[in-house]
C-alpha cells in the first residue's frame, strides 16, 4: 500500500479547497446574506438596509419571474426530450454502421465546440424576417415568410430549435458511449431466439440504456435551465416576455435594474428549487432502475 507523507495529502487538496471556499462558498453565502437586504448606491457607496424576507415575498408576484419560470420549464422539457431522442436515434444509427461512422461523428459534434454567443449570432441572421435564409427558402417553395423571433407565438419555439441544434450533439456523444458499451451477447441471444429488430430494441437495448438516458436527460436539463447566451442574443427575452428565461430575469434584475438584494433572493430561490427538483428526480430515477 502506498504511504505518502501527510503534508502531500493536505497540499494536494489545498488549492481546490481554497478556490471552493473563497470563490464558490463565499459568494453563495454572500448571496444569501444580501438577499435579506435592500441595496442602494449613494455617491459610490453601498447602502444596505435590512428588510428581512421582503425580497422573497416579492418573488411570487414578479411578472418577469413567473414568465421566466414557465418559459424555462417549457424550454427544458421540450428541448431536453428532443435532444435525448434525437441523440439516441443518431447514436443507434452510428453504432449500427460501426467503424465507418467516424466521419459522421466528427462532423456531428461541431456545434458543441462553438460558443453560445456565436450560435446566437448565426441563427439570428438565419431567422431574420426580411433576408434570413429560412424565410428565403420558405418563399422559394411558396410559403409566406414569417417573423420568427419577432412574434410571440413562435419566438420561444425558435429559441428551442436553436437549443436543440446546439446541444443534440452533446446527448449524442454521451449516448453513443453508452450504446457502444452495451453487452453484445444479450442482443445476440435475443436474435437467436427469433426476436425481431424492434423487439430487440424494445426489450433488450432500451431497458439497458435507461440509466444512461436518465443521466443524459438530467445533465442536459441542468445546463438547459441555465440557458442565457442564446436567449440574450436571439431575443433578449422578448417580444414582451415571450422568451423570458430565469437566468435572464436574474440578469435583468441584478445588473440592468441594479436591484442587488432582490436579484440575490431570486438566485437563492432558483438554486433551491432546482436542487429540490434534482434530488426528487434522482431518487425517483434510482428507484425505477432498481425495479428493473
Amino acid at each position, binding site marked *: *500500500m*502506498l504511504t505518502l507523507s501527510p503534508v*502531500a*495529502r493536505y497540499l*494536494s*487538496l489545498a*488549492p*481546490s479547497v481554497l*478556490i*471552493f471556499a473563497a*470563490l*464558490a462558498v*463565499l*459568494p*453563495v453565502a454572500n*448571496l444569501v446574506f444580501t438577499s435579506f437586504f435592500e441595496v442602494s448606491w449613494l455617491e459610490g457607496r453601498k447602502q444596505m438596509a435590512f428588510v428581512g424576507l421582503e425580497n422573497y415575498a416579492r418573488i411570487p408576484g414578479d411578472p418577469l419571474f413567473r414568465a421566466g419560470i414557465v418559459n424555462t420549464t417549457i424550454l427544458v422539457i421540450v428541448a431536453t426530450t428532443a435532444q435525448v431522442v*434525437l441523440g439516441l*436515434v*443518431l447514436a*443507434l*444509427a*452510428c453504432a*449500427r454502421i460501426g467503424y465507418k*461512422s467516424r466521419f*459522421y461523428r466528427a*462532423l*456531428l459534434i461541431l456545434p458543441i*465546440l462553438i*460558443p*453560445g*454567443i456565436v450560435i446566437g449570432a*448565426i*441563427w439570428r*441572421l*438565419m431567422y431574420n424576417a*426580411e*433576408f434570413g435564409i429560412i424565410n*428565403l427558402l420558405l418563399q422559394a417553395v411558396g410559403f409566406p415568410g414569417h417573423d420568427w423571433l419577432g412574434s410571440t407565438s413562435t419566438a420561444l419555439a425558435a429559441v428551442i430549435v436553436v437549443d436543440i*441544434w446546439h446541444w443534440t*450533439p452533446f446527448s449524442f456523444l454521451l449516448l453513443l458511449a453508452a450504446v457502444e458499451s452495451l453487452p453484445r451477447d444479450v442482443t445476440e441471444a435475443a436474435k437467436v431466439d427469433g426476436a425481431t*429488430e424492434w423487439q430487440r430494441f424494445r426489450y433488450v437495448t432500451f431497458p439497458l440504456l435507461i440509466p444512461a438516458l436518465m443521466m443524459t436527460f438530467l445533465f442536459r436539463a441542468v445546463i438547459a435551465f*441555465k440557458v*442565457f*447566451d442564446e436567449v*440574450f442574443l436571439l431575443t433578449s427575452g422578448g417580444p414582451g416576455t415571450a422568451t423570458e428565461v430565469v*437566468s435572464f430575469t*436574474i*440578469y435583468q434584475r*441584478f*445588473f440592468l435594474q441594479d436591484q*442587488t438584494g432582490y*436579484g*440575490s433572493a*431570486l*438566485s437563492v430561490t*432558483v*438554486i433551491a428549487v*432546482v*436542487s429540490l427538483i*434534482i434530488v426528487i428526480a434522482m431518487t425517483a430515477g434510482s428507484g425505477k432502475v432498481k425495479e428493473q
Partner: protein
Amino acid sequence: MRPRVRQPSRFRWGTAVSHGLLLFAVLMTLGPFVYIALSSLKTQISPLMGEVAFTPTMLNYEEVLFDRTSDYFRNFANSLIVTTTSTALVMVIGFFAGYSLFRMRWPMSVVNAFLVWSMAFNLIPAVSLAGAWYEMARSVGLANDYLAVIFAYTTLHLPMALWLLASFFREIPRELEEAAYIDGAGFVALSHCQILTPSSGSRCALIFAPCNKNSAQRRSTSHMIRSKQ
C-alpha cells in the same frame, strides 16, 4: 476477436437508413456554418437585398483583421490568455485534488462533500455569482484585471473537471502505481509524470475542450464582471 460474418442481406436496408439519417443530420448541422461562411463573403448591403448569387468579397475580413479601429486581435489575445491560464489552473488543481481524494484515504465524508458540491455548483447560474465576484475583485484591487476573470473561470470549470477526473482515478488500477513504487519511484515521478499523466491524457483533453470553447462565452461573463458599476 469475433470472426467477421457477412451480414445477411436483409440488414442492408437498415444500414442504408442509418446512413441516410446521419447524412441528413450532418447536413442540418453544417447548414448554418456554410450559411455564415457565405454571408461573411458578402457586402453589407447584399443580404439586405436578398441576393442569392453574389460576387465574393474579402472586405469584411479586411475590416476585422486589418482595420485600424479593429480590436479583434486584442480581444482574441485576451480570450487566449484567459482560456489557457484558467484551463491550465483547472487541470493542475483538479488533477491533484482528484488524485488526493481517491488515493490518499480521505474519509468518505470529505470525498462526498466534494462531489456533492461539484454537482450543486453546476446548478448555479453564473450570472448570479458575477456580481459577488465583481465586488470581491474590486475590494482587493483586481477589478478590470485578467486575474479576476481567470479565477472566475477556474472556479466555474473546476467542479466539472473534478467530476471527470474523480471517475477516472477510480478506474486506473492501483497496481500500476504500486508496481512503480516498489521499483523505487517517488511520489511526483510516480504518479504524476510517468504513470498517471500519460494514461489520463485523453481525459485532460476532455476537460480542455469545454473550457476552451467557452472562450467567447467568457466575454459575456467577464463583461459583466468588469463593467458593473
